[in-house]
């Protein structure tokens, strides 16, 4: 027997064998009893539901509510789009402002800078500075040169004390001369 024949036989067997309802009388009685109970005493929830949402049975109210809901959804979506665009614009403006401040353009007036600092206070990290590599190298060189000169000076003072005395005396003489001139 091929598959198709088997399929037909199985379907035929199931079709001809209908499920049998046992206890038909009891089932009918149960249904009638439940109907009577529900007729006599409407359930509280049903009553409340009818009171609160009974208006939904009117077709025109349902239609109007659906239209209003659609309108509100439309308005909401439009609003969201507008608000998102505005937020994006403001963010872009703020980014431009912060970039301008960080760039420290020389042509900005002091009041302008103060105003921008007030607007974008949160966007700037305190105690931070931007410096180029060449500036940094120049700064380091200056520092090293200064340190070298200082050491030279210290060395010369330390090794030849008579020079120190000479300078001291000369400075004192100059001071005295100035005093006498003033007295005259």
């Amino acid at each position, binding site marked *: *027997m091929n598959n198709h024949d088997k399929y037909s036989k*199985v379907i035929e067997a199931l079709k001809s064998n209908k499920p049998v309802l046992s206890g038909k009388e009891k*089932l009918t009685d149960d249904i009638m009893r439940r109907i009577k109970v529900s007729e006599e005493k409407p359930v509280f929830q049903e009553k409340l539901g009818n009171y609160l949402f009974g208006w939904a049975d009117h077709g025109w109210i349902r239609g109007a509510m659906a239209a209003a809901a659609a309108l509100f959804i439309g308005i909401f979506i439009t609003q969201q789009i507008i608000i998102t665009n505005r937020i994006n614009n403001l963010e872009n403006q703020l980014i431009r402002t912060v970039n301008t401040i960080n760039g420290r353009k020389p042509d900005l007036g002091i009041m302008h800078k103060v105003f921008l600092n007030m607007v974008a206070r949160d966007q700037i990290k305190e105690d931070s500075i931007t410096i180029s590599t060449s500036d940094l190298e120049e700064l380091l060189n200056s520092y090293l040169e200064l340190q070298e000169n200082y050491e030279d000076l210290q060395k010369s003072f330390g090794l030849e004390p008579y020079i120190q005395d000479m300078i001291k005396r000369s400075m004192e003489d100059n001071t005295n001369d100035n005093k006498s001139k003033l007295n005259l």
Partner: protein
Amino acid sequence: MDTVNLIRSCINRDEAAFRTLIDRYSDFAFSVAFRIMNDEEESNDIVQESFITVWHKIGSFNPEKKFTNWLYRIVVNKCYDALRKRKRMQLIYPDTNSWNAQGLISESNPERKLDNEEIGKIIRMLTFKLSTKQKIVFILSELEGLSHDDIAEITGMAKTIIKSNLNHARRKIGEMIKKYI
């Protein structure tokens, strides 16, 4: 009393007429519910709930229309709900060892009568891999012998969807028959 007059009496809240209506159609409702649910207790509950719905909504039914299609729709909807609930709670796996599928197509005893339990097991086994929609379309079309127009009216599905569901169901059931019978 014919069905149209019976329904008119029910619309006028005649309880005796409704009792007659239940007597006349409860076997039919149970048969559909059982073929879908494959469980006697659940099918009984569905029949009860369905007739209570009929009593409450019969005012909106046009007596000139086919009552069985309307009853089918109510029963099928209740079955849908029950299957959804069952799906959430547990998945019943069919027991392939406990049913004698060969006997179903045996040449020696073609007139053998099946009881509810056997019918339930066979349908559960064959339709185990089907979705709810496929199962319902298969039962209404193949076992209840309804036309695609009637199934469309009962389930609210488009005819093309009914056809595709039925094809899927036939293919899967064919595979199950090949495997087990």
